[in-house]
């Protein structure tokens, strides 16, 4: 749905240049939620703004729904942008317009008639659960309600793709939860493809099917979240499950990207006569599946066989690097 290849972006300032994107390839499948996570200054916003050409990449191409946006300009670029919704961290609502008029704005831009606008605005406000706030002004709403208006506005022109720049970063945890749920529902019910950027791992864990970890203008890692978790040395796994450092001798990190009902640890002791000592761990629901990650000390004569057994069971076993 979104295919960006070789994206580079250099900001030229008076005295120096800032390399914000240094060769990023981004492939977002139709109907998935793709999260880009990284620290402030990593280039996430720049990447997102390159996707709808708010920022023109210095090099590389961007195609959305099969259309090469980098080759467009003027009226055709504006038309293409109408097919891409965008949600903003600080909502970016017009303070002079009511909620209903804010949601109607993209429809006005697209030249939709008054009656049709009114009908569509009603639908959208219902979709985000804000019918009774139609005549309120943004200043009278809570942060979560403002973001719902922002989402309704982004969906007004029935886009296939939604871009979200830190949509929940200005919200408290409970509100964040409800907005993420809303995005999840929209993704499922409308088949909406969502590209979101965030600095919160939690967002990736809760709703993303795929993810990329961004640092200094490049993707350090990208792919389906569950695949990444099953990849040795995964940064994503380490960030999603911050375990205490496993530097004691014989400690391994075990990741199991699905539910295990078998009593694996007692099995190990029985079969291989090794000492098993669970040092720390966590089980989390990721992409709708429960995923666990444990630091386990395993010692004994048959240690190697025990590890092989675990790998055989489909678990990812990583020896402590230190």
């Amino acid at each position, binding site marked *: 749905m979104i295919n960006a290849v070789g994206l580079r972006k250099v900001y030229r300032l008076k005295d120096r240049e800032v390399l914000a994107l240094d060769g990023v390839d981004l492939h977002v499948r139709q109907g998935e939620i793709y999260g880009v996570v990284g620290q402030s200054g990593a280039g996430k916003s720049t990447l997102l703004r390159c996707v*709808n050409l*708010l920022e023109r990449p210095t090099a590389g191409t961007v195609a959305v729904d099969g259309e090469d946006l980098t080759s467009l300009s003027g009226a055709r*670029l*504006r*038309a*293409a*942008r*109408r097919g*891409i919704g*965008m949600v*903003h961290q*600080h*909502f*970016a*609502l*017009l*303070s*002079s*317009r009511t909620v209903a008029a804010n949601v109607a*704005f*993209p429809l*006005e*831009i*697209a030249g939709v008639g008054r009656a049709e606008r009114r009908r569509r605005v009603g639908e959208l406000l219902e979709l985000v659960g804000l019918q009774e706030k139609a005549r309120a*002004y*943004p*200043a009278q709403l809570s942060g979560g309600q403002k973001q719902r208006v922002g989402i309704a*506005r982004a969906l007004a*022109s029935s886009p296939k793709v939604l*871009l979200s720049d830190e949509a929940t970063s200005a919200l408290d945890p409970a509100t964040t939860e409800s907005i993420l749920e809303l995005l999840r529902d929209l993704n499922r019910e409308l088949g909406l493809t969502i590209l979101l950027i965030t600095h919160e791992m939690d967002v990736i864990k809760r709703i993303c099917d795929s993810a990329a970890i961004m640092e200094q203008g490049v993707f350090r890692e990208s792919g389906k979240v569950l695949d990444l978790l099953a990849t040795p040395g995964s940064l994503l796994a380490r960030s999603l499950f911050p375990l205490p450092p496993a530097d004691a001798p014989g400690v391994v990190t075990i990741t199991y990207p699905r539910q295990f009902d078998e009593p694996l640890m007692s099995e190990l002791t029985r079969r291989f006569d090794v000492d098993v000592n669970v040092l720390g761990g966590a089980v989390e629901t990721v992409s709708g599946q429960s995923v666990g990650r444990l630091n386990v000390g395993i010692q004994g004569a048959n240690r190697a066989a025990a590890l092989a057994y675990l790998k055989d069971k489909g678990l990812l076993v990583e020896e402590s690097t230190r």
Partner: protein
Amino acid sequence: MSWIHELAERWPDMWPVLWLGTLDTLYMVLWATLFTVLFGLPLGVLLVMTDRGGLTPAPAVKAVLGAIVNIGRSLPFIVLMVAVLSLTRFLTGTTLGPTAAIVPLSIGAIPFFARLVETALREVDRGVIEASHAMGARRLTIVAKVLLPEALPGLIAGLVMTIVALISYSAMAGAIGGGGLGDIAIRYGYQRFDDYYLWATVVFLVIVVQLIQSLGDVLVRRMSHR
């Protein structure tokens, strides 16, 4: 308190003079306001649009417009009035009276208002403008439907400041025969040392300014949804 008696005695003579002066002042100020908005608003919009990072960056245009505005702003009004006398005669056929005064008043207020417009437009959240681009809005649409409506409270506050400044300029215009309350203050108060006229014009000017300011404040409050 003998001045009250004297004032009461003279009031029937003073009232028509003051009332006509007030009407002349309002006439000059309202027409000048109209021309000021007509030229100052687009000028202010252009100043913001041509800015670096504006909707249509054009540093050269911005520099020229900025310079013109600064020249207009740095001329004392009384000097400007004399400087544009020939233009005034060309446009109105005379250099005396309220109609003639409209010309320098407008010219003096346009750059003043343009800067206030510029300031008000700059206050508009950049995020909202970016969001409009993301929605596929044209630049003119952004000016008409985002920039101006979002800045409306600031624009009205700026307009009120401009009108108040015009009232004060109009009193100066009185000094060279522009008519209005300022003219009365000069002719009766200054040249004939008639304190009654002097203070009466002061009171009238204060009342007019106060009314306009209050009306403007109400409008600004009504328009502001922040």
